[in-house]
């Protein structure tokens, strides 16, 4: 079991710094894009403890995020997909600063998110990285008017604004997300699910952030409502030129909204690349099986059928070698010994597999 006390931490960090120079999987989708978020060798372990009267014993670690390097470029939408327990939510919480990493760092431009040098920098980080949650009902205070909820960040970040200015900003953002100013004088329970998600977007956008983390923003909604929220997100994304990390388990949704996509499995990114490339010709067998598992409503879509055996292994006892080897349909002996790293496989797609795939999974018939 890996030790996470401070002395051994330093050792690992030094080791990884030398690697960082060359390995940053994925490249920007547009030429003048800048790096806004940089995740360096991020690890987040949760300890499993048994507590007796006097002693607390650590039995092991849940390796929720286990070595992730990632760059997010300005104005892009990065889709993050993977099954439950793969660490997508832990990764996003660590990026916004809700969780402290066990190892590694997250940088917002020149600022370390978890160690801001002063209050000004901390406020600047907070202002520029906002979050949209899955369930907008539990993330809005039921006792406060929507206008008060939306106004609060302005009070903290822009104390110079007058009351009129603040209200003006609230009305403006409500209109931008497709609501009316009178909606500000309602409580969260008076809204439908789709409208509440619009409020959730308004709350994130009112600070005019550079990065938004959207954790399953449409999975609680019905399809017809989901479509309107996705349209709205696309409009707002180009209007505000904000970079979005879009977490979802629905691959069709991710395909629709994102420029790049990262596939996670058991705490690691196993494949990352431009959306079209990854979905047209996935390279990692896990991506292949994920795409093959999507049920399609369109009868003209035909697919290669890959049904995975078994369940996702526990992130406490990882299989030796490649983490996917226990479920992989093309597993070889080598896979159980070697832990593959992310490498550039084809075009701009990086994947961590010793025997990558090179065939399409989906076929589209003409009507």
């Amino acid at each position: 079991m890996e030790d996470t006390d401070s002395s051994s931490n330093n050792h690992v960090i030094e080791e990884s710094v030398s690697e960082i120079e060359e390995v940053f999987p994925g490249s920007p989708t547009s030429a003048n894009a800048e790096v806004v978020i940089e995740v360096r060798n991020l690890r987040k372990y949760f300890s499993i403890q048994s507590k007796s009267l006097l002693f607390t014993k650590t039995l092991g670690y849940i390796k929720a995020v286990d070595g992730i390097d990632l760059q997010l470029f300005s104005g892009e939408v990065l889709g993050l997909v993977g099954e439950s327990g793969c660490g997508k939510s832990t990764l996003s919480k660590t990026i916004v600063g809700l969780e402290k990493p066990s190892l590694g760092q997250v940088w917002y431009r020149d600022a370390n998110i978890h160690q801001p040098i002063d209050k000004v920098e901390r406020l600047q980080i907070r202002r520029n990285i906002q979050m949209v949650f899955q369930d907008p009902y539990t993330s809005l205070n039921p006792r406060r008017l929507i206008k008060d909820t939306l106004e609060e960040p302005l009070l903290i970040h822009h104390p110079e604004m007058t009351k009129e200015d603040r209200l003006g900003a609230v009305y403006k953002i409500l209109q931008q997300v497709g609501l009316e100013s009178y909606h500000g004088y309602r409580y969260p329970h008076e809204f439908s699910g789709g409208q509440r998600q619009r409020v959730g977007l308004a709350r994130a956008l009112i600070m005019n952030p550079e990065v938004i983390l959207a954790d399953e923003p449409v999975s609680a909604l019905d399809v017809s409502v989901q479509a309107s929220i996705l349209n709205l997100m696309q409009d707002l994304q180009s209007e505000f030129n904000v970079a979005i990390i879009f977490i979802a388990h629905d691959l069709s949704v991710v395909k629709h909204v994102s420029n790049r996509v990262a596939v996670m499995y058991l705490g690691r990114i196993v494949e990352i690349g431009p959306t079209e490339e990854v979905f047209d010709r996935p390279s990692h067998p896990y991506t292949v099986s994920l795409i093959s598992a999507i049920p399609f409503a369109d009868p003209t879509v035909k697919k290669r059928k890959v049904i995975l055996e078994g369940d996702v292994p526990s992130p406490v006892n990882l299989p030796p070698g490649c983490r996917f080897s226990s479920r992989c349909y093309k597993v070889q002996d080598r896979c159980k010994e070697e832990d593959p790293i992310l490498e550039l496989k084809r075009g701009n797609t990086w994947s961590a597999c010793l025997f990558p795939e090179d065939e399409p999974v989906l076929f589209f018939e003409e009507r």
Partner: protein
Amino acid sequence: MSDVEDESNKLLEVVNLYTYFRTESGIVKALDGVTFDVRKNEAVAIVGESGCGKTVTAQSILRILPKNGESVEGEINYMGVDLLKLTSKQMRTVRGKEIALLFQDPLSALNPVFTIARQMTDVISLHRQVDVEEARQIAIDMMNRVGIPEAETRIDDYPHQYSGGMRQRILIARALSLEPTLLLADEPTTALDVTIQAQVLDIIRSMQKDMGLSLMLITHDLGVVRETTDRVHIFYGGRVVESGPTANLFLNPKHPYTIALLESIPSFKKGKGKLATIPGVVPQLINPPIGCRFHPRCVYATDICKTRPPIEFIGDDRKIACFHWKEIDEQRMKNKGSK
């Protein structure tokens, strides 16, 4: 398709069913004249968005409605017997033995303090004339058939020792161990991840074929419907708006609601353009729109839509409840031709 309207082919027929709920704010008309059928050996889907009456339909069939709900009118003919007319004692022999139900959340459908063996054999010995040892053997066989490894030893485990996908397999095994004729599955894979969902759907499908039973799959996921079922009934606002063979209906939807619904899902084929949306919200069933329930949100609606549209047979084993479907269809064909 000559045998389509053959009465003997029908296993379950719901005719003009009205189910109401009494609530503090008034009467909720959850089902408002629902008519559909399930045939022998086929997989049928009931599809719709939240609040359209999918789950209430299953509860009405099994007569397990919450206390404030009641099926006030209509017939539920199962193999020629109207289930609504049975005594509650007779009904108990139908539930499980004839019509089995599979729930959405497998953890809350299993009792955490009893072993799987206890929970499976209880059900088996209640409905089948077997002793304890035989019941256990039936349970183990069934668990093997749904792909639970080491069923002989794992049967003595508790529900929390299984993963979500495995728990759903146990519920399938338990439901099928009574050899029912009809399996009602209410969102059986909604709580599962895609790769596990694919496994579970694969099992449900192959068990349905092997055991020659009929499946009524209730879901909101149009993809699951397309890949699992032969026929589909589209629900909206407590009524059936369109029915037909799944592939045919998804390729050529005719009801404006079905058309809009299919266009609003992001597809792998479509580009990054705007998704089609349906304006407005799902109707409140306390005070539903008069006439066609979809007319306030429908782009084709006219004055006649304020009366209830009749259900029309339109060939190819398809039914539709819309006044304007012909014009809409012609217009869509023209648009397709000109592209």
